[in-house]
């Protein structure tokens, strides 16, 4: 993984309204134990990442991406955990409180939307 490696994030359809994505798409839920799931863009293409997610009953309006360096600047370690599949990674928010998580999520969402959809569902 390099500073420019893209980390691919699936965006749930309810997290998109009139083309705008909520910052929640980049914030772990309480059940995620502070870890936000992403895929290593060096190992998998956005379309393939989306296909695997939706094939396993997950819903996704498309794939956005942030760079490894952008996460590093925000103090978010990228864990190459390889679980439950080899290219799976986690952004570690666990050191931050709720307000700080929301702040970082806003910054990540902004970077990702500026970069544009890496893959978008046609539905």
């Amino acid at each position, binding site marked *: 993984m390099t500073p420019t490696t893209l980390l691919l994030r699936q965006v749930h359809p309810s997290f998109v309204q009139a083309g705008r994505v909520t*910052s929640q798409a980049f914030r772990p839920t309480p059940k995620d134990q502070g870890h936000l799931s992403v895929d290593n863009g060096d190992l998998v293409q956005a379309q393939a990442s989306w296909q695997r997610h939706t094939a396993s009953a997950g819903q996704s309006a498309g794939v956005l991406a942030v760079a490894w360096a952008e996460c590093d600047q925000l103090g978010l370690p990228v864990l190459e955990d390889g679980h439950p599949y080899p290219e799976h990674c986690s952004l570690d928010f666990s050191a931050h409180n709720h307000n700080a998580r929301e702040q970082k999520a806003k910054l990540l969402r902004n970077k990702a939307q500026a970069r544009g959809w890496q893959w978008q569902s046609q539905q």
Partner: protein
Amino acid sequence: MRQAFINPRLVGRRFEEHTVPLEILKDFSALEEMVVEVAKWKFRQAHPDSKRVQRNFSQGLELHLAQVDDGSAIPAIVLMTAGLVPTANTQYFELAREAIITAIEQAECGDAPTLPKHLLSYFDRFGRSLRAGESIEFQTGEQRAVTYTPGVRKRLVEFAEIETLTEELALRGRVSTINQNNRSFVLALPDGRQIAAPLTDQHWAAVLEAVQAYRQGGYVLVQGVVEKDRQGHLRGFESVEHISPLDPLDVTLRLSALSELKAGWLDGKGHAPDPERAQWLAQAFEENFDAGLPLPHLYPTAEGGIQAEWTFGDWEVSLEIDLSTQLGAYQALNLVTQIQHDEVIALSERSDWQRLNTALQQMDGAQA
């Protein structure tokens, strides 16, 4: 001459400025019709040998709104008589007033009203303009008041055993069809129901525009009087007062859609927003959010709440709303300077809505 007749107290936010919305006057017009008919009924009770009420029974007797007194809003309604002295029939108007208030009190207590069913049907129109949380109080003694609410009205109308109940309603939907032959149009509601409505000349342009926007998902707000059957099923519009195109970010429409989410909506994890609480939030936005500000984008949260978000130039604003506590976690972040404001907004408090409006206005103004 004129004599004091009834001084009902209107209770609710709309009446706090000691004014009476013109819309409510329609209800009092219906009350006058009811008073006349109940007075005739009282006359017949007092004269069982009379086959019919005299032809000019109510001639020269009218109810007028004399003034609006303070105390939420109290319309002073007087009985006007044509001559210098009260007519003989004045007493039946007073008996009618008492009978109507008694019927309301009986329904309020859960008892069957003593008014005949054909007279109870007037309650379909009297009180139709009252909104949730509003009421009309009738003083019946020094310390006692009878309270007429939309719920009491519903019970009275149920006792009337009429086929069709009417209600003032605002419905959101898309216009799917115009029928030029019978001058009507069809409003397709988000839940799939198709509601017919009369098409009048003054609404022709708005309906035509709406039907053209159908394929692009253009929604309109149709306000008017709807007919319902006794089970509460919507039959259609009896009349239409206003048709307005909706903002694509319309809060009520979006919250209604989010209320359809089921438990586990977030790939097995998300809690569903409670529909009644989401409806409360829609109402709260309607009443408190500054209409001059851009509407928020709204998203469900994994915890069953709602997150509202705005973008004003470099400012990203979120309000994470817990529907059960009615508290919102507000965060405004400047993406360039990283200046950040966090606070808690109590959405049950008007003063906190004002704080929210002021904060958003400052960012909106700085952006312009």
